[in-house]
């Protein structure tokens, strides 16, 4: 959003620098249950983004003063590895990662049936192994798969994706160059069953029409991400040999 470049982000044919059209997202790969010691986990690749999410709980909430006597709280920790970006990222929480942790946990709180576990805490850890714009969306996508993998009761799985504007075009799922030299970035997360929006931010400027178009693109793409998330979860159990029946 800040820099300027002579780079042509969208050519005259509407093609982007990585060969995508304006309405195309980057290739997505999701794998559920990759960690043994966590209650639930997921690994997500969206283009060059690589994200690992782990879920623990519901378990007793520490520190105690954060406990809510009526429902569980979701404690999210978004962390970027020092090697996740080309300049070394100074390790530890910073303003940005605290913000992202907060918005992701608020998005997840909308779908998790937290009232089933009063006084408990559900801990979500999101580690960004490699970043290439759109890590908060990748992180939330991974976190919701990990929550479902942990068997935590939830209304739906949350998919997230960004839309934005670069070179005067409204684009879906900005990559790093488009994010850095573009005009706007709008990450969105929805609840697919109702199309409710649980996360919406905007960095930069767009007209009202461009914004509406961006939302439309992102909501459509969220449904595609949702299908990939569901496949990843189901694959975990169908990978095993045929299951003829149960004898309980």
């Amino acid at each position: 959003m800040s820099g300027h470049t002579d780079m042509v982000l969208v050519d005259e044919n509407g093609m982007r620098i990585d060969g995508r059209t304006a309405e195309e997202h980057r290739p997505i790969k999701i794998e559920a249950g990759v960690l043994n010691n966590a209650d639930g986990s997921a690994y997500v690749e969206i283009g060059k983004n690589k994200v690992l999410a782990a879920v623990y709980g519901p378990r007793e909430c520490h520190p105690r003063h954060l406990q809510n006597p009526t429902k569980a709280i979701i404690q999210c920790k978004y962390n970027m590895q020092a090697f996740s970006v080309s300049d070394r990222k100074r390790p530890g929480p910073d303003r940005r990662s605290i913000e992202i942790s907060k918005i992701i946990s608020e998005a997840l709180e909308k779908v998790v049936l937290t009232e089933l576990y009063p006084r408990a805490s559900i801990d979500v850890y999101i580690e960004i192994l490699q970043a290439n714009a759109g890590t908060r969306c990748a992180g939330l996508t991974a976190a919701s798969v990990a929550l479902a993998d942990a068997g935590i009761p939830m209304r739906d799985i949350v998919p997230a994706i960004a839309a934005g504007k670069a070179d005067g075009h409204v684009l879906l799922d900005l990559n790093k160059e488009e994010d850095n030299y573009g005009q706007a970035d709008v990450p969105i997360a929805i609840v697919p069953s109702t199309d409710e929006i649980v996360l919406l931010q905007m960095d930069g400027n767009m007209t009202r029409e461009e914004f509406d178009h961006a939302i439309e693109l992102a909501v459509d793409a969220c449904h595609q991400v949702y299908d990939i998330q569901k496949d990843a979860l189901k694959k975990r159990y169908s990978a095993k040999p045929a299951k003829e029946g149960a004898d309980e």
Partner: protein
Amino acid sequence: MEKRNARQTREIVVPGDILDASGMKPGENAYVLDGKVRASAMGVRNVFQNTVGVIPLRGCYMPSSGDTVIGVIEDIGPSNWLVNINAPYPAPLHVNEVPWKVEFGDTSRYLSIGHVVILKVLSVDESRKISVTMKDSGLRRIEGGRLVKISHSKVSRVIGKSGSMISMLKNMTDCRITVGQNGMIWVDGDDENADVAAQAIMMIEEKAQSGNLTDKIKEFIEKRIPQDDDYDEGDE
């Protein structure tokens, strides 16, 4: 054993999946949205009469009253012990609920941290406060043997249809086995036999999704422990 194949295919669902749109009632782990029943947990779709629900594949143990559980003492108070029963909350065991007469502040003379006990869940209230008791037949502190921890959702497979799996395990390995509803299983017997029993239980957890499990486990144990003929069918 053949009649099992007559059951409908097991359909894995994830949260948000539509279970039914024709007016069935929501069962366990299901909710209604716009007249459609949707899943609220990952598991296997299960239809029972006119309710449709989900049998969870994973998830933490939620105690319900009457469950027999195995727990580890985690903390000691002057008039109670805190027991870890793999639930989201520790279960307090009050001195009134143990079979001994315990003086105030004398709790650590009876049970100390790390001791393993078989308990029964008395009640779980609205705010998920758990109370457990040790005052019932079979409830006691256990010594010796070993603990095997499995996912609580696989406990029903370890027990089997009307206890078929567990009685086979007990007969073939000649071990004492107590299964807690929370997924903690206590196995006591000869070192070698208990090893096999523990391995068999881990195998049940791993292969819980596959059919003919009882036969597979039987084969597994027979390979390791030669059986006398009179043990064969495992009836008792």
